[in-house]
């Protein structure tokens, strides 16, 4: 019989060592999450010894006004940042995919995506100094600054899936609309927008998760009393670990999981 290792094109199935490495990575990645989730249901105040099953830490977290306030603040910031960033990213994606190639096209891509490459701490320090200047010059303070900072770093995340969607979208749909007497704005709202909508939704979801989850920018830029959920969680860890943090994390994980599944379905082309 022919040896499949010789006759097949390169296939990782036949490469020795791939399976154990894969298994190791998956376990290393998910074991901490699973353990964290298990202790969220602990009936005692320990994150190392499992005593019994209960929802007490979920209840405690839900009743904790600090958790409530921090969650609401995080949601507000993430919502505002997501909406503004997604609109900006949609416009940027249209401008970079629905125009004829021009000089500096590649530079525009790079500039939009560059925030992904700059270390976040650098952006955070820069933002802190910049906002400090504005605040001292104008005397304006408030949550708006934090929302603005979030909006800015969300834009490249929202931009990526929207641009990918537009690049995969055949231009002939828009040509057909133009051919059938649709002027530019009608063409956009009746054809381009509905077809690119899954990409926009995916970009918005990604923005939301990124904003909700942010720590570094919040730590440096947030004003007094502007405690977001991740910052609150870090604060409680300093006062000693309780399963309450596990419970909050488990809820966050659940919400994120729903988002990830949604993102997957929106960015996967069902037809192909």
């Amino acid at each position, binding site marked *: 019989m022919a040896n499949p290792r010789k006759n097949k094109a390169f296939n990782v199935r036949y490469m020795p060592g791939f399976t154990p490495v894969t298994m190791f990575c998956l376990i290393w990645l998910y074991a901490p999450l699973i353990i964290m989730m298990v202790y969220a249901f602990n009936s005692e105040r320990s994150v190392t010894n499992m005593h019994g099953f209960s929802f007490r830490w979920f209840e405690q977290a839900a009743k904790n006004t600090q958790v409530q306030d921090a969650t609401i603040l995080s949601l507000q910031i993430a919502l505002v940042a997501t909406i503004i960033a997604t609109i900006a990213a949609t416009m940027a994606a249209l401008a970079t995919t629905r125009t004829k190639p021009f000089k500096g096209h590649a530079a525009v891509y790079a500039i939009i995506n560059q925030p992904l490459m700059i270390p976040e701490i650098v952006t955070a320090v820069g933002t802190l100094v910049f906002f400090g200047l504005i605040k001292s010059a104008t005397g304006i303070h408030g949550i708006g600054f934090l929302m603005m900072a979030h909006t800015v770093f969300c834009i490249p995340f929202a931009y990526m899936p929207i641009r990918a969607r537009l690049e995969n979208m*055949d231009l*002939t*749909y828009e*040509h*057909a*609309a*133009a*051919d*059938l*007497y*649709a*002027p530019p704005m*009608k*063409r956009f709202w*009746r*054809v381009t927008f*509905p*077809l690119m909508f899954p990409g926009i939704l995916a970009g918005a979801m990604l923005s939301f998760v990124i904003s909700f989850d942010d720590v570094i920018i919040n730590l440096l830029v947030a004003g007094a009393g502007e405690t977001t959920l991740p910052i609150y969680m870090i604060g409680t860890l300093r006062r000693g670990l309780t399963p309450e943090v596990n419970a909050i994390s488990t809820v966050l994980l659940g919400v994120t999981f729903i988002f990830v599944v949604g993102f997957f379905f929106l960015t996967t082309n069902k*037809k192909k």
Partner: protein
Amino acid sequence: MTSKSSANSSSVAIEVQGLIKTFGTGDASVKALDGVSVSIYENEFFTLLGPSGCGKTTLLRMIAGFEHPTSGHVLLGGDHIGHLPPFMRPVNTVFQNYALFPHMTVGENIGFGLEMLGKDKSEIARKVDQTLAMVRMEEYVNRKTSQLSGGQQQRVALARALAPEPRVLLLDEPLSALDLKLRKEMQIELKRMQHETGITFVFVTHDQEEALTMSDRVAVMKDGLIRQIGAPREIYDHPTERFVAHFIGETNFLEGELHDINGSTGMIKLASGSNVPASLPDEAAAGTVTVVVRPEHALLSTSPDNASLTGEVKTIVYFGTDTHYHLELESGDSFVVRMQNQRDSGTDYQEGSKVGITFKDNAVQVLKD
């Protein structure tokens, strides 16, 4: 440009004048159209035929408004439209990949153009039904376009482009994605629809058979130029250039001496020494010329004595309806004769037998090049 007579202009649907289109700049520039002028008449099925890269699609896109001329004019019913965007031209296109809107139903797709023109709902519904009936797709009005087969999508694309009753319908190789049987059906359907609607069809294809079966007139294009325009029969029987003769159908090329020119006819002295009458292109001059003879316009005979050419049968290929005889002439050139098979005709000719070739009337056409 002003010399155009008014009587003629009423029947001209599309006129392009000296159209040049250059893509890119400097050394990297490509001339897609190199000075094309043509008039396409009302209620005409006009085909642009040529190999890929000949400029046929560029010309179509320029009539649709997706490309703008580097120089030259596009006129619709005598009005300049070269500067108008696509949505301001009463011209619709059937795209090669159909480009049906995937987020709309069949009915919504077909009604889209009418909706954009601001027609009221009852009129749109009536027109959608009417157009769907014409393409025989009434029962599919509420289907999603992704649920349709290729042939059905083709019909919907056609209905969508016809529903707004454009002055001119442009078709960009719309049949190329269909299988052979469906393609043949659609060729007849398209011809029928053109008759029923009376709309001018401009059809782009690289398929010579498609061009010959459907068109009122064919323009054969190559390298951004129209090489010959005429009715299918004229293009096929009287090609004026080597390229046209070669591109459409099978043909035999022979060298000869042209003499005794009398208007559009003359005599050709072939290498065998015999003289045959020939049709001439414009501005033909006496001297050495290339002539073409279609394989079915020649006959074989067992007696080589008073034949125009003589040769030896090399290969016989049986095709059911007819038989192809591949011959080697005395001059060494090859020559193909196609003869229709008769019932019980048997085989008069064997491989290796010496035969004579005679030409049917009007079989010899002189080329310009």
